[in-house]
C-alpha cells in the first residue's frame, strides 16, 4: 500500500513568477525544472526535505481547454482554487519578520493557537500559505 506522500501540486499562473516567489522569497529550492516540450515539469521542496515535493503547475491547454483554464485561473486569483501549503518552522516570529522584509504579502500576523504559533500569507497568484511553529509532542 501507499508508503508516503511524495509530490503534491498547486496551480500557479506563471512558473517563472512562482520560482521568484517560492525559491527567491520563501527560500525553497528547485527539485526538478524540466522542459518536456509539451509542459514544464517544475517541482520545489524545502531544503533538506526532498521527499515532499510541490508541483507548480500552470493550468492551460492542451491538458485542459482554454475555457476551463480560464476558469481555473480565475478561481486561483480569487483565492478559491483550494491550493493550500502548510510549512513548519522553528521560530514563527523570526520567519514572519524575515518574510516581511522580503516583501511577502502577509495575511495574518503570528497568532498563538492551541497547536503552536502560526501566520498566513499569499503567493502572487492567490494561493493560501500557512506557516506554523508547532508545539512539541
Amino acid at each position, binding site marked *: 500500500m501507499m508508503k508516503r506522500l511524495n509530490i503534491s501540486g498547486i496551480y500557479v499562473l506563471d512558473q517563472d513568477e512562482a520560482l521568484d516567489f517560492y525559491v527567491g522569497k520563501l527560500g525553497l529550492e528547485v527539485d526538478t525544472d524540466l522542459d518536456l516540450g509539451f509542459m514544464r515539469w517544475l517541482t520545489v521542496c524545502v531544503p533538506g526535505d526532498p521527499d515532499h515535493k510541490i508541483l507548480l503547475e500552470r493550468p492551460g491547454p492542451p491538458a485542459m481547454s482554454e475555457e476551463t483554464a480560464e476558469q481555473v485561473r480565475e478561481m486561483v486569483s480569487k483565492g478559491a482554487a483550494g491550493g493550500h501549503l502548510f510549512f513548519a518552522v522553528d521560530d514563527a516570529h523570526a520567519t514572519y519578520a524575515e518574510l516581511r522584509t522580503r516583501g511577502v504579502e502577509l495575511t495574518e500576523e503570528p497568532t498563538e493557537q492551541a497547536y503552536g504559533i502560526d501566520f498566513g500569507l499569499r503567493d502572487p497568484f*492567490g494561493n493560501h500559505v500557512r506557516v*506554523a511553529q508547532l508545539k512539541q509532542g
Partner: protein
Amino acid sequence: MSKVTEERNRRLLRVRDLMDRSYADALDVPTLAGLACVSESHFIRTFRAVFGETPHRYLQRRRVERAIWLLRTTDRSVTDICVEVGFTSLGTFSRVFHEIVGESPTAHRRRGSVGPVPSCFAHAWLRPASTAISEKRASVSQH
C-alpha cells in the same frame, strides 16, 4: 480579457485580505474603495461580482465569525467580544449575530469548544454562510 479579470480578482482579494486582517478597525466602504483605487460604487459592484456578496456583508460575516471563535474558545463576556471584533454597540452586534447565525451569542456559546484543526480552517468553515440571510436584510443592518 482573462488577464484583466485575474488582475481585478487579485486586487480585490488583497482588499479582502485586508478586511480579514483588520476586521476590528473602522473599515468603511469609502476607505476600502480608496485602497482598491476605484470608486465606491464600482468597488461594491466588482466585489460582489467576484465574491458573491457586498463588502459590507463580507465584513459583517468576518466579524461574526471572529465572535463565534471567541465565544467558543474563551470565557470572555459577550460585551468584551462585541468590542473586540469591531462592533461599537452591543445592540447592533446582537442583532447582526442573530440575523446571520440564527441564534443569540449566548445560545451559540453553549455549542461548546472547537476541535484541534488549524485555526485558518476553523475560521473559514465556522464562518456563517453568505446565504444565511439575504443581502436586502443585511443592508438594513448597516451601522
